[in-house]
């Protein structure tokens, strides 16, 4: 049977193409444009080739920020994913507690980033903050302004507070989709609590966990507002993540070329790591 090909159908894609062009491709191209040029001001630009890229890639400032970012994402994933699963497992599956828990869990997600930052900035202050003041009153030497370790702990706890709910809600959605018959069959089969988790709940949460890990990784790797509001990247450069460094370079120092090159490298790293995560988890999924 012969199919007649009608290429006019491609016009259907045109509106979408235009939309993507204006929302993503063209803005991205301006960054590409800056990344290969240099300027001495006065709106005069010179061709710089790949100089900015090699500069950024060989700068220890970039390496440090990248390492900090990887450490940050790694730690929050290690905390938020198990904690999220644990909380989701302990949430009620029916009854009056369900809406209460869901609303309670959603609250942190509803607060704008900079407000979260401000909350923790104030909360952790040693002079007026409930947390900082109490800790010091109890004899714990806590001060996120001076101590890099304390600054890290504050930023990490803040992120856990803000985003664990997302993992919880996604896992919970996976859990409630498990039919009762599975739990009943497990009882009949004499399965232990751990077996129920390992062979029923975890496999059913697999897909939503993949999404949760991807979202949390991308988000935490791009984190900007919250640490910026709390620590401003300090003390020193202790909490200067890639995005904070990028803004410093672009707007603080007005080094548009290096900043543009850095943006592109940053973007490619996120893309690459997300792809790796996704591929690894999908492959595991297929293997079962």
């Amino acid at each position, binding site marked *: 049977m012969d199919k007649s090909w009608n290429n006019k159908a491609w016009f259907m894609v045109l509106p979408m193409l235009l939309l993507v062009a204006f929302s993503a491709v063209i803005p991205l191209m301006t960054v590409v444009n800056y990344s290969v040029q240099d300027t001495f001001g006065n709106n005069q630009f010179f061709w710089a080739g790949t100089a900015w890229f090699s500069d950024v890639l060989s700068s220890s400032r970039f390496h440090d920020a990248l390492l900090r970012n990887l450490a940050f994402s790694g730690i929050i994933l290690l905390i938020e994913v198990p904690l999220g699963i644990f909380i989701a497992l302990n949430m009620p599956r029916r009854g009056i507690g369900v809406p209460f828990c869901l609303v309670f869990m959603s609250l942190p997600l509803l607060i704008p980033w900079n407000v979260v930052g401000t909350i923790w900035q104030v909360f952790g202050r040693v002079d007026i903050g409930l947390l900082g003041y109490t800790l010091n009153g109890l004899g714990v030497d806590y001060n996120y302004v001076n101590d890099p370790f304390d600054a890290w702990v504050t930023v990490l706890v803040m992120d856990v507070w803000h985003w664990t709910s997302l993992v919880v809600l996604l896992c919970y959605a996976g859990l409630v989709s498990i*039919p009762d*018959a*599975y739990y*009943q*069959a497990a*009882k*009949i*089969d*004499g*399965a*232990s609590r751990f*077996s129920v988790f390992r*062979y*029923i709940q975890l*496999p*059913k949460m697999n897909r939503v966990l993949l999404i949760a890990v991807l979202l949390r990784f991308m988000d935490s790797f791009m984190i900007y507002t919250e640490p910026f509001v709390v620590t401003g990247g300090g003390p020193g450069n202790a909490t200067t993540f890639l995005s904070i460094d990028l803004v410093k370079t672009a707007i603080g120092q007005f080094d548009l070329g290096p900043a543009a090159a850095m943006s592109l490298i940053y973007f490619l790293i996120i893309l690459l790591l997300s792809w790796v995560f996704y591929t690894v988890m999908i492959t595991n999924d297929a293997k*079962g």
Partner: protein
Amino acid sequence: MARIDLDHIRHAYLPNPSRDEDYALREVHHSWEDGGAYALLGPSGCGKTTLLNIISGLLTPSEGRILFDGRDVTGLQPEERNIAQVFQFPVVYDTMTVADNLAFPLRNRGMAEADVKARVAEVLEMIDLGAIAHRKARGLTADLKQKISLGRGLVRADVNAILFDEPLTVIDPHMKWQLRSQLKLLHRRFGHTMVYVTHDQTEALTFADKVVVMYGGEIVQIGTPQELFERPSHTFVGYFIGSPGMNVLPVALDGARARLGAQSIALPGAAGATEGKRTELGIRPEFIQLGTAGMPVSIRAVEDIGRHKIVRAVIEGHELAIVLAEDSSVPADPHVTFDPAGINIYADDWRVKLGG
């Protein structure tokens, strides 16, 4: 293997049941004999699954006791009751292989690995899944998954009973037949007490020695397939079993005769006390002769269903289904006679004995 006694079991899903209607199970007092093959038959929502879950221990009844071989197990958890149950929709452990799925209940009970292997191999052969024993259960078809579920139900040799909750719903018709025969074979071979819930009368009648018919949270009749067919003890059983179901006609009783409009029908005997009750005559379409003698009827339609014809007629303003042999034809002036052996009389839906 055990005899299971249900001692005045009642169950309500509501916290404070007051009226009879609040109960999903109104009252069940019944014994399942050791080694019996029972079918629990009834329409959706009649309490079949509730009763099954009470036996397996997934539900604790609001009232009453359950005894296994005389031992009270009402408060025991399912795993302590040593019961196998197969559910309506396949339950498989996706990440395990088919063989591991079957081994799971055994391993959970700490059986030695060599015995597990032997038993699993045996069950794999029974349900004919040997070829895919080492494949992951994920991604198999619903039929195969349900076969795995069945296999997990059969894998423990020492269970007190095996309960099936409409296990063949998702299975292809031809495979249904095979699996049902196989279950029956397994029952003969190992003699487990089996309770098989279904709303499909063919399934119930072919699987079981004894069929338990439930309706509205109560057991309305327990009997062999033949008893259910010939002597339904409740009009519901008459409707529900047989195709088409029993004809139920409102009649007035007068000694050993029943009056239906202008017609008078001879009964095999006089009914007992039925004063003040709604009386009905039940007769199966198979026990009605269509000919030129007897009571006049008008014919509405004739359905030819292959083996025989079903004649839809009207007698004294009431609908009547008649089974007619495939090669017979409908007479021009149709009359019917009722075979006295097929007549049952009901008072308020319950069958009354006919004396004499």
